[in-house]
């Protein structure tokens, strides 16, 4: 343990690093909320993420793009603890959270919405919204928070409708609302607008931007649609073959021929 910590403290981090691993480990935080350090995930002989150094500042809205199989969802699941890292460390709010259980990470302020919405179909919208909130709020405060979550998800008037009767877009909104109701500092969204029409995309973009600007929640959003990305984020990180490939403003990254090539499926 101590050996690997020493190693991570001395090793140079990637270009996106805003704070050294040593600073994160000692709790001397600047504005960096999350920092991964040499994160590797192997599934048998396949390396899904390879030596990824990825950082998110407090209150930042960062998009993660890259072709299918680039390791985007794997990276998010490593951050939440759904997957255990094969190598490397994850620092959050000045602490090494690599060995924490997923629920402990959530309790520290990380939340995630999975790619495929899986609301509890037999339960009403209100019953769904209650689930994350009932863990930490009771009585009148609980009811108030549930009302607020439903309103924030744009589902006022649907409280008693079974979640299975909602449209795909509404289910996505409900899921984002449920994740946001935990009042996280960092919210990870895996393809929140996949399969949605233009109006629904705009509604989600507006919701994400509002949560980011008004509530100060930092976001990492995986998305293929670069127009959607441009509408919500200034900075993007491109993953390719499990590695950080490019990082920078969306317009610059979009214009990069190498990025265009990997999106078209050609090797650089």
């Amino acid at each position, binding site marked *: 343990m101590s050996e690997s910590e020493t190693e991570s403290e001395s090793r140079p981090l990637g270009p996106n690093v805003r704070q050294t691993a040593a600073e994160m480990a000692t709790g001397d935080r600047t504005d960096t909320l999350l920092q991964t350090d040499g994160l590797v995930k192997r599934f048998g002989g396949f390396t899904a993420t390879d030596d990824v150094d990825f950082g998110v500042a407090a209150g930042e809205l960062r998009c993660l793009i890259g072709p299918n199989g680039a390791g985007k969802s794997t990276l998010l699941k490593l951050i939440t603890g759904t997957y255990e890292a094969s190598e490397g460390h994850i620092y959050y709010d000045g602490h090494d959270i690599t060995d924490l*259980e*997923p629920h402990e990470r959530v309790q520290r302020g990380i939340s995630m919405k999975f790619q495929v919405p899986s609301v*509890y179909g*037999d339960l*009403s919208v209100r019953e769904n919204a*209650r*689930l*994350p909130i009932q*863990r930490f709020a009771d009585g009148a405060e609980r009811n108030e928070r549930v009302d607020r979550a439903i309103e924030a998800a744009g589902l006022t*008037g649907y409280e008693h409708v079974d979640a299975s009767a909602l449209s795909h877009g509404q289910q996505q909104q409900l899921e984002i609302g449920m994740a946001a109701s935990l009042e996280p500092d960092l919210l990870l969204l895996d393809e929140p607008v996949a399969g949605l029409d233009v109006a629904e995309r705009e509604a989600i973009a507006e919701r994400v931007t509002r949560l980011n600007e008004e509530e100060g929640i930092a976001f990492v959003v995986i998305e293929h649609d670069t127009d959607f990305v441009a509408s919500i984020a200034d900075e993007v990180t491109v993953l390719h073959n499990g590695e950080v490939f490019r990082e920078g403003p969306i317009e610059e990254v979009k214009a990069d021929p190498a990025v265009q090539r990997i999106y078209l499926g050609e090797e650089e």
Partner: protein
Amino acid sequence: MATDAPTDGGQSLAARVRARFEGPNTIGNSNGFWVGFLVAVAALVAFPLVGNAEQFSLFLVLSLLGLSLSVVWGYTGVLSFGQVVFFGLGGYTFAVVSINFATPGGITAAVLAGVVGGGLGAAVLGYFMFYGGVRDVYVTIITLVATMVLHTFMAQTAGSEWTIGEAALGGFNGMPDIPLLKLGVGAASFQFMYNAIPVWVPGFGTVELDPFYYLALVLLVGTYLGLRALVNSDYGRAMVAVREDEDRTRMFGYNVKRIKLVVFILGGALAGLSGVLYAARNVFIDPTVFTLLFATLPVIWVSVGGRKSLLGAIIATIAIEYIRVTLGGELALVMLGALLLGTILFLPNGIVPWVHRLARQNRPAPADAEGPETPDPTEASES
């Protein structure tokens, strides 16, 4: 549906108590249901006047085993083939302790020891499974293997070396020396087995009633109500969330491993209680409680009745066991197989939820049940 309404300070005590037993995770949240429930309990209380209470008490005891699987599998999504492990551990623990301490106090302690034994067995097995990362079908396989291992182990305990104090485990011959069930201490105790109580009943004259039947009935009704309160509580909602999607439930900050372990232990203790009553009722226990057939029965009861329904588990256990005992032999096995196959093919959610849905469809819709007919999400979000 009285589900998540804000708590009204003006609610009567009765309404508050009732609200504890109602919610989205149980069928039957209407006045009609509770009237029917009281009628059913009254009918069960009166049943010994007209039916075979001694036989029926077995069905009540086994219903506790069915409930234990319903809460573990139906509500938390852990398909355990090993409920009979904890049932058998409960029964054997009760037998060993009660034979060694055959006083009323000792037998009462043996009942508690049996329940604890079932829960402890579940705690050990569950801890290694859930904290070892075992999920889904592998839990089913491990619990099934645990059943078979215990069957093999208990079957070879015929020798005198397998004696605990004065209690010989007896291998295939089982343990025939279990004392009659008495609860209490010293003079303040009551014998529940083979102790017909004469009672005068209008219209029937003096009849002899079996106190064990009523003990089993009280425990079953109490357990049913207790589990209703549990599954509709915050904890129960988290259990159901685990059943629906473990990873997602973790992302709401719930410790899924602990929830599964706690429910598994509760299920083990309940199965242990069922095993205690089974051994006490039969005044005997042997390794047949660990056979593959017996291990399969709870899965059939709960599948047929409706695994997400506590009531379904009870009704199906009683009905199937009645038919099984009445038919007997291989015909009963064929019937069980056909029933399971038919349920999986045509009523995958079980019979009781299907009947409940039919009943609801035939009822006029309540005026306050639905939200807007065709609401527009973008419009709604503009407020």
